[in-house]
């Protein structure tokens, strides 16, 4: 698998990371190195081995269905730069 400059542009857009054009080519090279390194794992025969989901063999912790949170409007909105009343304000999204 090899990433092109266009792939990197697309990934950057999807991740909302601004990447100047001149950085795309070098980034593609770096990412290809990483992907190539990870792809070495494909050399190991994993037939019949279930995918590992966690490094710790443990059950999913679950919560009881009780209200223990919320009502912290001030904290939730503390970092909102463009709020209005108790809302977050964001650039207009129209559909």
């Amino acid at each position, binding site marked *: 698998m090899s990433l092109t400059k266009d792939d990197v542009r*697309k990934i950057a*857009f*999807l991740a*909302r990371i601004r990447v100047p054009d001149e950085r795309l080519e070098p980034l593609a090279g770096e990412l290809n190195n990483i992907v190539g390194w990870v792809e070495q794992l494909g050399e190991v025969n994993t037939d019949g081995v279930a995918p590992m*989901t*966690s490094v710790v063999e*443990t*059950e*999913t*912790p*679950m*919560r*009881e*269905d*009780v*209200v*223990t*949170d*919320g*009502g*912290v*409007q001030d*904290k*939730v*909105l503390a970092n909102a730069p*463009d709020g*209005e*009343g*108790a*809302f*977050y*304000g*964001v*650039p*207009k*999204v*129209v*559909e």
Partner: protein
Amino acid sequence: MTHLIQGETGDWEVVIGLEVHAQAITKSKLFSGAPTTFGAGPNENVSLVDAAMPGMLPVINEMAIEQAVRTGLGLRAAINKYSVFERKNYFYADLPQGYQISQYQHPVVGEGTVTLDLADGSTRDVGIERLHLEQDAGKSIHDQDPKRSMIDLNRAGVVLMEIVSKPDIRSPEEAGAYLRKLRAILRYLGTCDGNMEEGSMRADVNVSVRPKGADELRTRVEVKNVNSVRFVMQAIEVEAERQVGVWEDGGEVVQETRLFDPNKGETRAMRTKEFAHDYRYFPDPDLLPVRFDDDFIERIKATLPELPDEKKNRFINDMGLSAYDAGVLVADRETATYFEEAADGRDAKTVANWLTTNLFGALNKLGKDIGESPVSAGHLGELVGLIKDETISTKIAKDVFEEMLKTSKAPGDIVEEKGLKQITDTGAIEAIVDQVIADNPDQAADVRGGNDKAIGWFVGQVMKASQGKANPGQVNGLLRSKLLG
């Protein structure tokens, strides 16, 4: 019941699949302890987890899993004891995480069945593809400010069950029947309140068309977020017509997402967002796979109520109702409960009749639902009892029923107070009959002269003279023996 669209080149069939988002009834959210109550002030029901503050970790609400399994059992579906939460990545202002935690390759519930009750009393099965759990997003409000959208995250993280049907639905009517049945099942189970106005049940509709008799599945279009049964039916109607037009004009339907505009009665393409469907799913590293055992399933199974289909069969087989009446009565849990209470120890068919015609009609006029009925179930049953034991005639019963609607009194008390008890004493009826015959010698002669039909007029006069209280059968018999015998 086939629904065909007549095009210029021939008949077309519609293929429909529905994705229903049902809000699961839980006190707290899927991954946080914030409340799920409707109508709270903006951003009041939000925890730092829901707002996706850095470092916050999701922890699964056990009740969400339980509700999903309970719903799966109600849909006669396969329950997966192993399921995985994944991240569905997309960028939108009301999704603070930048991804929705959902299930993709390993949903908690697999294939099942919903049986539709159609208008003609017949049934039809629609397959369920899967049910998976996911977080709801927040709400964007666009009309408060010319330059900005306002975001309320109260809904963000609320538990949704996405229920995906197979493309088994063939008409707008079947889509309506599917939604109503699904809603009934969810309400019986107590896993979703089914309230479409408050948004606790929303539907995405997948529509495609194909020439009648074809087996192929053509390109489908997804109509998003249709929020009432009526709109779903209308959206299918207009979208299918549009697609037939496209194909017949030599064009090609493109796979896209459209919105239904109920005011204009049309669907239109959503502004296509570039890369909108590149969700890059991957297992959420913050959450381990969900595992539970057979005991967990059995424990839930033991608490399942009698579901609409089982109830319907019992109403037909044990209580002698028609498939149609049974279908109407079980469509809504409150109605079914009311009926069973009213029919307890009474003639079930008569109770069903009074309920579906008289009471439904009256409630409709009053704009009330069955939970607010001024006539209690016990009283309706008592009324039917009074008819059956001939205390009152069916005609008088209608007057008593009107009085019950107005006063909520027991029918027995009304009959007593107003002296409406049916006269079955032959002597008393005979006296009235004799009087009426004596007062109307010309008409009597007419009947005696061979005009049988005029006897009906006499029955009417006697009933009137008795203020409707005489037993009509007895009146008829006495008149016949006196005038014709």
